[in-house]
């Protein structure tokens, strides 16, 4: 089976973000073939080069999203092409500007889809879509849509500068329409398109589905629409933000409508997808996997823990709320005088460094140094370390050294530190933030955030009860091994691939020399989702197995 993996600024590039899981996926599914289609985000990223790729990646194609296209100096469009362009782009812009209309969302979505596919077809036949979008014709079409009767107020007050900015963004966002990836030798030859994030990465998948009927699978670990809202902060004018948000919202809706299966990484992404119009029946939550190898040793030996130590691991920043942890630890120490706290982590940026300093000061204030006797040198019950220092050489050792792992964040995404702790078989006490509850699932204690008292109670309860710690730790490790490992991630994706391919096979008609379709040219075995080796010699001259 050949899978077209679509990425944007991610996997094959050396400094792509969130590319590790794609790498693990590709390496884990060695029996299939992968074609990589990567969009790069900046010149820097392209210049850095690609990661070393395993042999099952048969093809890599990249395209830039950052180049500045030539402006509409000479739009090489004839009259008919101009008319088509105006019509399709007008529909697209109209759908974007009518985004506030809730009465007929399906109609708006249909308009958007028609406009988008019409522009794609135009780009495929004539080319030069970027120049047309930036030309005067494109800007005028956009203006007309903004001044149309149904447009929202913010769009109506868009000024010329705003229109130009929006045009620039749209042109960049619609650049995948101008690529030549949709032919029969490229994405058209794949059995399945797997988009590794929403938004621009999934757009080629949409078009492959439109042109070639290739089914689409979209994985989202962080919802693209949400990231768009958070990134386009206060910089731009409200009209620009409104229009772009509407465009990305429409695009997201279209992607969710057309994808066969959506796999959000956690419940949070899933909620957003459902909100944006995804069908619940098509959503499968596949948790991201972590390599569990390094933690097995720590996980299998719960006795190495120091029974009085609480451990906190992570990147120090204000959202982690170490202050309430310190306050909770003060309460813990009041009840369990022998308790220790280890804070292991490096600060994240200047803000984190300031916060770390503040926490150190607070710890020094709260906890006087303790010494064994009147003549011994004491040390503080709270210790701050960094990974790599002699006291905390590696991550598994840090987790192994503690009896209980604590997480006290106020704002949290997907807590990978917690999963590492679970893999090490340590009982955890964490605050309810982000996906913590989903991850823990009953194998640890969860307390409300910003509640040092509750945190302290939980910690004390665990510190006093070693069998309970052991039970929780074992349960946590079992849960982590079952849900959050790379193997389960790869296995889940494999199952989804097979499901998609079985439900939506791509129909390809093979033609013979004279152009008539060949019957039985694709034998039944050709649909088996495995690597089909070389064609047998007797099949070479006239037919070829569908691959």
């Amino acid at each position: 089976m050949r899978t077209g993996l679509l990425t944007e600024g991610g996997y094959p590039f050396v400094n792509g973000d969130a590319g590790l899981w794609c790498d693990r996926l590709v390496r884990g599914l060695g029996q299939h073939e992968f074609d990589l289609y990567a969009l790069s985000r900046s010149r820097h990223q392209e210049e850095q080069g690609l990661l070393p790729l395993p042999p099952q990646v048969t093809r890599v194609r990249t395209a830039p999203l950052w180049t500045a296209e030539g402006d509409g100096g000479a739009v090489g469009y004839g009259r008919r092409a101009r008319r088509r362009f105006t019509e399709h782009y007008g529909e697209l812009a109209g759908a974007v500007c009518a985004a506030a209309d809730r009465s007929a969302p399906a109609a708006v979505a249909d308009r958007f889809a028609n406009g988008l596919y019409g522009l794609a077809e135009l780009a495929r036949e004539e080319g030069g879509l970027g120049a047309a979008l930036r030309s005067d014709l494109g800007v005028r079409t956009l203006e007309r849509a903004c001044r149309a009767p149904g447009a929202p107020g913010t769009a109506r007050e868009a000024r010329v500068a705003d229109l130009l900015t929006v045009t620039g963004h749209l042109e960049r966002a619609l650049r995948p329409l101008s690529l030549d990836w949709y032919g029969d030798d490229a994405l058209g030859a794949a059995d399945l398109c797997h988009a590794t994030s929403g938004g621009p990465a999934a757009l080629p998948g949409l078009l492959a589905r439109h042109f070639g009927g290739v089914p689409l699978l979209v994985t989202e670990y962080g919802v693209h629409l949400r990231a768009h809202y958070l990134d386009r902060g206060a910089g731009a004018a409200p009209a620009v933000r409104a229009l772009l948000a509407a465009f990305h919202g429409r695009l997201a809706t279209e992607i969710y409508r057309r994808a066969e299966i959506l796999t959000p990484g956690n419940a949070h992404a899933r909620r957003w997808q459902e909100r944006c119009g995804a069908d619940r029946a098509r959503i499968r939550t596949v948790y991201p996997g972590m390599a569990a190898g390094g933690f097995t040793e720590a996980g299998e030996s719960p006795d190495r823990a120091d029974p009085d130590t609480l451990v906190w691991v992570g990147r120090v920043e204000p959202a982690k709320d170490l202050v309430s942890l310190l306050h909770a630890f003060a309460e813990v120490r009041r009840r369990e005088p022998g308790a220790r706290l280890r804070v292991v982590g490096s600060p994240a940026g200047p803000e984190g460094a300031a916060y770390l300093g503040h926490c150190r000061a607070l710890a020094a204030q709260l906890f006087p140094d303790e010494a064994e006797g009147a003549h011994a040198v004491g040390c503080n019950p709270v210790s701050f370390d960094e990974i790599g220092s002699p006291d905390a050489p590696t991550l598994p050792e840090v987790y192994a050294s503690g009896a209980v792992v604590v997480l006290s964040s106020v704002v949290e995404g997907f807590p990978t530190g917690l999963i590492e702790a679970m893999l090490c078989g340590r009982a955890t006490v964490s605050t309810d933030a982000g996906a913590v509850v989903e991850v823990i699932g009953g194998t640890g204690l969860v307390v409300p955030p910003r509640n040092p008292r509750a945190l302290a109670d939980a910690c004390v309860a665990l510190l006093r009860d070693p069998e309970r710690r052991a039970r929780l730790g074992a349960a946590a490790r079992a849960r982590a091994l079952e849900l959050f490992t790379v193997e389960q991630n790869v296995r889940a994706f494999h199952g989804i691939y097979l499901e998609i391919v079985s439900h939506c096979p791509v129909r390809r008609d093979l033609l013979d020399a004279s152009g008539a379709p060949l019957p039985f040219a694709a034998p039944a075995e050709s649909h088996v989702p495995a690597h089909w080796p070389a064609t047998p010699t007797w099949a070479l001259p006239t037919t070829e197995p569908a691959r």
Partner: protein
Amino acid sequence: MSDTPRMPSGGVPWGAGGDGHRPSSGTDPGPREGTSARVTPAAGEWPRPTAGADRAVSAGGRHGGEISVNWPDAPDDSPSAPVAGILAVDHPAAAPGPAGTFPAGGPRAGESPVRQPGAACDLPPVPGARDLPAGFSAHAPGPAGISSVGEPRAGEPATSRPDVSPAARFVPGAGVFTAGARALPAGLPGHVPGPAGTSSVGGPCAAESSAGRPDASAVPRSVSASSGSGVILSKSRAGGRRTSAIPADGPPAPASRPPAPMPAANRGAVPRRPSGDPVKALLHRHRDLCERAVDALEIAAGLEAQGITDRTAARFRHRDVFSLAEELYARVPRAGEPRAEPTPALPVPRVGAAWALSSPLPGIAGAGTVAAMRLTQGQPRLLVAVAGIALLALATRAALRTGPLAARNGPRRGRARRGILAPWTLWLLGYALFGDGLLHNVLTGGPDTLPDGAPGGAWPTATAPALALTLALVPAAWCAYLLTAGARRRLAGSRGLGDFTAAARPLLLGTFALFLGALAALLLGCATVLGEPAAYPQTLTLGALLLLARLLVAHGHRHAPALVLGAAAVTEAVALALPLAGRLPHCGLLALPVRTLTDAVGEPAVPALACGTAALALLLHAGRTLTRASAHAPTGTTG
């Protein structure tokens, strides 16, 4: 449909007996009897509230029937029930969806119109303290979560919610806890409406109770049993500490609200600030975000980034963050549209040192060449001329590489369709130098000698126009700069495309006229210095043509200038060739038009006419093309 990850499904057997709610008496919202707590804190561990009455709404230890609370000493209405919102949630991460939904738990006492202090959080079903078959251990049957009173960070002095600094709640063991210790830098993320320990833990507990308490389990609200003790402590430390007001906004339980918030108990004697509208406080706190947002989803994204989850939204009587965001979006005061937001200015091209310094270079080279030619005679003059022209070419290339006259996307696009301008330009300049003389010679019998570079003689060389043109690169660059800068300013200020076009047209004509004036002045100066007749018509028209062509090229339109320049050059070549062709036998008519023209007006008429019409055509074209907004769009990445 495996949208929930498979979980080792150890059903958590809810503690038995956790089923009934006792009908709340009076203001007591049915406390649910929890199963017997397996773990009970040692007596005396919890600070007892010293002051009196807890509110009738005693969330008290009761809550949560799901939380098997069974404090040995906890009297029924003891305010000590509180705290320890330790909840081991045992939801199989299932339906995170349910996290947001409040299953209307049975006869929730929530109906009681009791005010609840603090966040009403229903305790999530706490499995009875017993070992679960799958090896999960139940969480500690702690008492209901402490309502963590929201404590505003030091950076937010004015919040409308009464807060109790958690620090204040701690037994002042060492008296070390200082509110000041919590004075975190203002950079900390604004805390979500902290109040009320929203122990949102309960959320997904939903499906859990295998003991058949679906309703109870579904309650995702944790009771904020604000420990009376906490409150009391805060009271005692009120001096100098934060206001020990009751934590917030426990939204008063409206009967309509499905999951009735468990009354957080025991706020003790501290009067709670009545807040019938918790969303107002949230709106105030996130005023910036709400006012800036363009739709509800943006508010939802912002709220989630601040840490508000569905469980927190439950405290505001919403199903999830999205509906809360919609309410906020609807409620944000939209005073008269449009608010004058300062539109970010477009990048105006700056006066770059590169082009400002390199534009006089061709003029200097030209002047040097002319001076050298005037000073030499004969053979060296030729060499000087050749060297001078080479130098001039280099200088012109350098001057036109950067700055407002630089061709946009110049070297990258090599498409032949785009047009080649250089040969036509060279021909036109050459004609300006030698053409008049050549035409005169051709009309009077043929050129006898080669031009010798002198303004007089058989074949006069008009150096003044050429020199004036090379010197005119400076005003040309500045006029182009004025055009782009003015266009950007008008872009930022105009409301519609038609407005911009109407505003840009006078700008274009004005800069064009400015250039013509500067060129005329330079021509006058050169002619005076060199002692030649000032050839206004042909120089001005040629200058105008070259400027317009260069402007169009600088904005990326190469096709039209190439066409027009070619036409002008071809016209001049034809005008030269016709009299020559007229010498052939029987072709005397061919020379007629040129001869009549030169007889009537003079030799300068030919180039003037050719360049003039070409310049006019280009002016019309530029008036249409360069006044479009898309021609002045700032290129480059805008993120």
